[in-house]
């Protein structure tokens, strides 16, 4: 059995070599171009980047996506061509063919290494062609997978219109002690300071989360990003912001430092426990007493019982590749699972502070040890640990899934969690649907006698 001494969350952090497998952060274009429907993403990189995109995105590439590679050739690398002219030419072509309202340049490892000054070229070309050009350095030197979205949103945050405080009628404060709480909350929706949520989610989930807050009398004044560039929310001093995904620490920093917004640090709305804590925190900041939240959460838990009975007391190992790991582990521990290890590419302890606190509390409530949290894991070491621990389920990338399955270890492909709808109360079932799928499948096959399919 895996020995984990009785440790506090602070002591459970480790850092390994960083030799782990994950997607390149440029993969964020695949969901962001769909989310921001009038955008065009130009990835400035090499054949390697292009090959990754076309293979990882599979069928999407055939649907004339609104993204392309600016493929650097030998002459670009050796500076025989003038990169300003080259980019101007490509962007004019994009403008002509697609006429987007926004072009996002994705800087890659190569543009970093040859020190291509995208930030200073963008405004000049923007002026020449008349389309806003944003620069996001979503490269593999600095970031992993979902952090790509973080770099893009942080660039977009700087383009959001400025918020001008309107005259807020402060007289509502005198109603604060009014006995009629319902009418107060209805009123509240118009009088609390503006709230902008950040993180790219599918439009359905945006609707669901917005409605969830509206039920508490909280009005969401905008999302970063919106589906259209022109609809970006106003930002500035006096605006409160709150993240919906754990990998958005850079965006949070930009919103605080550059746009002077006030960050609401909350756990993330993943799982009914996370969603409830998220709403509670926002309510608390706006001095709203949450209404009916307890019941709502309990109802969701009740509806999950069939799935929970499948995973209760089962052990879990996160190899770590998309930064959702802490939130997912926290939810699954609440479901009764035992988590051996949470691998994670990068751990921002400040941005995830509330989430970590909730994890600690959850472990205490469920009377389990706090799992070790391994930042920048080493996949080779992890596989040795998996071999000795024999967890019931390993959440991992596609590079390791099949080899582990062949060795009789059940796996769940981690990337699915980034593409599935997992936020809010109503989607908790989807997370469990994903988590239990391999267990359900293997339940069907378990009596066949061929769970290990390799000679070692």
């Amino acid at each position, binding site marked *: 059995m895996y020995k984990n001494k009785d440790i506090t969350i602070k002591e459970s952090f480790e850092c390994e070599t*960083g*030799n782990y*497998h*994950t*997607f*390149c*952060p440029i*993969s964020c274009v695949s969901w962001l171009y769909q989310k921001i429907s009038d955008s065009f993403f130009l990835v*400035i990189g*090499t*054949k*390697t980047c*292009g*090959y*990754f995109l*076309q*293979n*990882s995105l599979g069928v999407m*590439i*055939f649907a004339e996506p609104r993204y*392309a*590679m*600016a*493929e*650097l*050739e*030998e002459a*670009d*690398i050796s500076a025989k*061509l003038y990169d300003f002219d*080259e*980019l101007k*030419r*490509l962007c004019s*072509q*994009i403008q002509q063919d697609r006429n987007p309202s926004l072009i996002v340049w994705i800087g*890659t*490892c*190569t543009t970093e*290494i*040859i020190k291509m000054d995208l930030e200073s070229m963008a405004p000049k070309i923007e002026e020449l062609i008349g389309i806003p050009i944003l620069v996001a350095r979503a*490269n*593999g*030197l*600095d*970031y*992993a997978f979902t952090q790509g979205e973080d770099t893009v949103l942080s660039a977009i945050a700087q383009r959001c219109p400025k918020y001008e405080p309107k005259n807020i009628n402060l007289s509502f404060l005198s109603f604060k002690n009014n006995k009629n709480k319902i009418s107060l909350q209805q009123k509240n929706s118009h009088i609390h300071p503006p709230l902008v949520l950040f993180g790219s989610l599918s439009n359905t989930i945006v609707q669901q989360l917005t409605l969830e807050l509206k039920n508490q009398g909280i009005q969401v004044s905008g999302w970063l990003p919106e589906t259209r560039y022109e609809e970006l929310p106003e930002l500035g001093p006096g605006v409160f912001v709150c993240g919906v995904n754990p990998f958005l620490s850079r965006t949070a920093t930009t919103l605080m430092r550059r746009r002077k917004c006030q960050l609401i640090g909350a756990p993330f709305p993943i799982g009914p426990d996370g969603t409830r804590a998220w709403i509670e925190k926002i309510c608390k900041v706006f001095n709203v007493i949450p209404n009916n939240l307890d019941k709502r959460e309990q109802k969701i838990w009740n509806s999950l019982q069939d799935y929970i009975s499948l995973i209760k007391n089962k052990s879990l190992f996160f190899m770590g590749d998309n930064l959702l790991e802490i939130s997912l582990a926290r939810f699954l521990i609440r479901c009764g699972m035992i988590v051996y290890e949470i691998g994670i*590419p990068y751990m921002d302890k400040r941005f995830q502070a509330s989430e970590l606190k909730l994890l600690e509390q959850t472990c205490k409530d469920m009377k389990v040890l706090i799992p070790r949290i391994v930042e920048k894991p080493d996949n*080779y070491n992890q*596989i040795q640990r998996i071999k000795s621990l024999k967890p019931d389920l390993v959440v991992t*990338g*596609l*590079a*390791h*899934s*099949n*080899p582990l399955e*062949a060795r009789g270890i059940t796996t769940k492909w981690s990337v699915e969690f980034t593409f599935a709808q997992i936020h809010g109360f109503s989607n908790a079932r989807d997370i469990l649907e994903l988590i239990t799928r391999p267990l359900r499948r293997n339940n069907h096959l378990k009596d066949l006698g061929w769970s290990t*399919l*390799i000679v070692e």
Partner: protein
Amino acid sequence: MKLAYWMYAGPAHIGTLRVVSSFKNVHAVMHAPIGDDYFNVMRSMLERERNFTPVTTSILDRHVLARGSQEKVIENIVKKDKQEKPDLILLTPTCTSSILQEDLKSFVERASQNTNSDILLADLNHYRINEFQAADRTLEQIISFYMEKNYKQNKEKLNKTKEPSVNLLGIFTLGFHHQHDCREIYRILKDLKININQIIPEKSLVTELYKIKQAWFNIVPYREIGLMAAEYLKKEHNMPYVSVTPMGLIGTATWIKQISNLVKKIDNEFNLIDYEKYIDKQTRYISQAAWFSRSIDCQNLTGKRALVFGDSTHAVAITKILVQEMGINVCSAGTYCLQDADWFREQVQGFCDNVLITEDHTQVSNIIAEMEPAAIFGTQMERHVGKRLDIPCGVISPPIHIQNFTLGYKPFFGYEGANQIADLVYNSFTLGMEDHLLEIFGGHDVKTVITKILSTDQELIWNNDALKELQKIPGFVRNRVKRSTEKFARSRNINEITIEVMYAAKEEADDQNNKN
């Protein structure tokens, strides 16, 4: 800079990794940033590989940029040596890390002082060559390294095997139907009483590579990978090779003849089976393909127009099969292997109306839209173009998807391969009953081309009666009739399509067919 949406051939390091991970007990260390190890996903998913892909990344991050990667790379190599005890570790940069121009050669030398494994550096220019060229080069590099190593160590002199034997060069991971092709080659060689000495690199040991010389000669079935190694072995070790692709009945016969001739040339005494007789028997009685193309069902294929696009090996072989063995008219044959353009042109000369050499998939799709062939034989990209244009497509070449890594036995080579190809071709064309329905509604290939681009926008209006009439046409030909009618309408500047227009279109199509 080039605006690119899609590419046929991958970057160089993919080719190198394919070769390296095909060998048994060889490990690759990639010098690359996070995320460049996507190769591991491809191998694990497409090939449904049960083993961990023997590729580790020595991560290139901000820290490394500042300090250089020397210690880290060496450390990672030495660590891999201890962990996996491979026979060979090959260090490869990617497009990105190759720009750093670090002295990787010296890292390799330093690392090899502390390892039991041999250490090599993939010797490539990542901006000049593609996946196939890199694979070709890496295979040659590894083979020549071990041939020379053996020579230096003066291991026992090796004699040729008593019975005729061959090496198979270029069977490897993520190849298009390589496993099946390899088994089919083995079967034919067995019939010919020729042994396989080594299959390289798939599941072979680098420590055994020096035994290559025991074989009488080499076989290189795919042009893209293995020719360089075969040339090296010919030049340095006096081993002849056969580079014909045994695809199609004629191709397979030529291949067998060349092999038999080589055997005779090397040892005239050897009692080889009568290969002429063997070929004749296989072609006429064992294989179904020859009979199939004579059967009356296949008459309808005569003169049908097809477009072929793929790597040079497969595109050439399929073009020849379609024309020579099935009587199909290849309107355009093309390849994305620019490095092999001259050979390709020479091969398809006289077999097709038009040769297409390009790496740009939009150019290929525009030509398909313009030519409107009755069927396409191409890569997954052409399959998708075909879907949009409603033209059937058989996949005959990489790049491919997971569905092309079939579990069942589906070779492209040899006599069983000829059967498989015949099935593929037959299923790709619309035949029989369907064909007659097309005749009735004039939906045949129309020679004039109105729209040259792949576009679906149109301002044509179908009136109610015409729509009803269109609905009466069986579903599987409806789209084609719709398109040919619209094409006709456009050519006459007709905006509204009525029943009259439909029949006029049909009549014109009939006229066209009569003239041809």
